């Protein structure tokens, strides 16, 4: 068991709010259709701010809330599937902007599971390599990789970022308990965005183009409703706990109907699965930390409670981290 504590959390959302009705003017869809199938009512869409801007806003707020100096941070991981560049990493841009000169910084690409994968990677750095202070941010500007004419996917997503500060505290009552990560590369084609193509011949004169977001809806739905409960059960078991002992299941906000099925399969009350998807849509790697921060802010989550944080999505990937908050 790692004596790691979530010191503080923060989130940042672009100002521009887009309703289902707004989308119905762009494509053949409706508020009723989107709401009943996904639980989504609004989403925030970035106008002019890129992923690193959203993540930097989170980083600045995290420093303000914690009182930590930027130089005291040892590691920054940004989980994203919509980085500003192939290189530099979004995390490196954040590190530069907040002047966290001592911090090692890199991005982690595991789509909607990215924040959970980052928590597990951070634990390893904190345990094996003695890193003490870590900043983890999930941030996405998905609006730039979405096909805004594809009504099957465009209605689902939103932009946003959120993060946490972690610290090694030997005498802390907070800790990271068991986790479970799994990747299903055989299902890679079920959810794709940003496909790049090699040159067909050399020299090449045609401009590069990138593939927009594509998803095989039922494959991903079936994957989520089966693999997510399995992941949660595995991580709870590794923590030597029972499902009933988990106070909150903070599950990736992909679709309220998926979350209801997960609760049903786990035979846990839906009240233990908080949701904010109505306001923000699916924000991929940002969804778990945005929800986590909101619940901490509303004092719904209290110190000492057991949290199951779960992500699932592109890869396909799934991951769960059990935390004693």
């Amino acid at each position, binding site marked *: 068991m790692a004596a790691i504590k979530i010191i503080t959390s923060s989130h940042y959302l672009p100002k521009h709010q887009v309703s289902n009705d707004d989308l119905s003017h762009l494509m053949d869809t409706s508020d009723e259709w989107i709401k009943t*199938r996904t639980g989504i009512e609004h989403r925030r869409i970035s106008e002019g701010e890129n992923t690193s801007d959203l993540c930097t806003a989170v980083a600045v707020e995290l420093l303000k809330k914690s009182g930590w100096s930027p130089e005291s941070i040892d590691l920054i991981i940004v989980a994203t599937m919509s980085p500003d560049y192939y290189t530099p990493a979004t995390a490196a841009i954040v590190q530069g902007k907040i002047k966290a000169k001592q911090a090692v910084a890199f991005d982690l690409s595991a789509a909607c599971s990215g924040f959970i994968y980052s928590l597990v990677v951070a634990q390893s750095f904190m345990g094996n390599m003695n890193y003490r202070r870590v900043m983890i941010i999930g941030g996405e500007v998905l609006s730039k990789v979405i096909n805004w004419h594809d009504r099957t996917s465009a209605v689902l997503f939103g932009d946003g970022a959120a993060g946490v500060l972690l610290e090694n505290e030997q005498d802390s009552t907070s800790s990271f308990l068991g986790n479970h990560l799994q990747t299903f590369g055989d299902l890679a084609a079920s959810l794709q965005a940003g496909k790049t193509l090699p040159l067909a011949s050399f020299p090449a004169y045609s401009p590069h183009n990138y593939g927009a977001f594509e998803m095989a809806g039922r494959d991903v739905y*079936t994957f989520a409703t089966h693999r997510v409960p399995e992941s949660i059960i595995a991580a709870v078991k590794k923590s030597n706990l029972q499902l009933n002992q988990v106070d909150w299941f903070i599950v990736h906000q992909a*679709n309220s109907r998926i979350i209801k099925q997960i609760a049903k399969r786990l035979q846990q009350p839906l009240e233990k699965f908080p949701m904010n998807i109505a306001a923000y849509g699916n924000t991929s790697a940002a969804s778990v930390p945005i929800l986590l921060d909101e619940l901490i802010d509303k004092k719904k989550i209290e110190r000492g409670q057991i949290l199951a944080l779960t992500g699932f999505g592109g890869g396909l990937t799934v991951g769960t981290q059990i935390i004693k908050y």
Partner: protein
Amino acid sequence: MTEEKIFNKVKKIVAEQLDVDQDKIKLEADIKDDLDADSLDVFEIMNELEDDLDIKLEADENVKTIKDVVEYVKKQLAAKE
């Protein structure tokens, strides 16, 4: 598995997923028009049948009525043997 047993299983799963009375689920009922299911409900009905019967079902196969589901399940069960 007899057609009647398959129908009973389908009825039970559809009733639970759509929160409707089992008696209302007739063979000729249209899943979307008569029973008010949407595409995600159909995913879930197919998923439950797949898990229960250890068969593979495509959601976009031409299934409109309960009878279509029963026949599709029967076909997939036969293919398994």
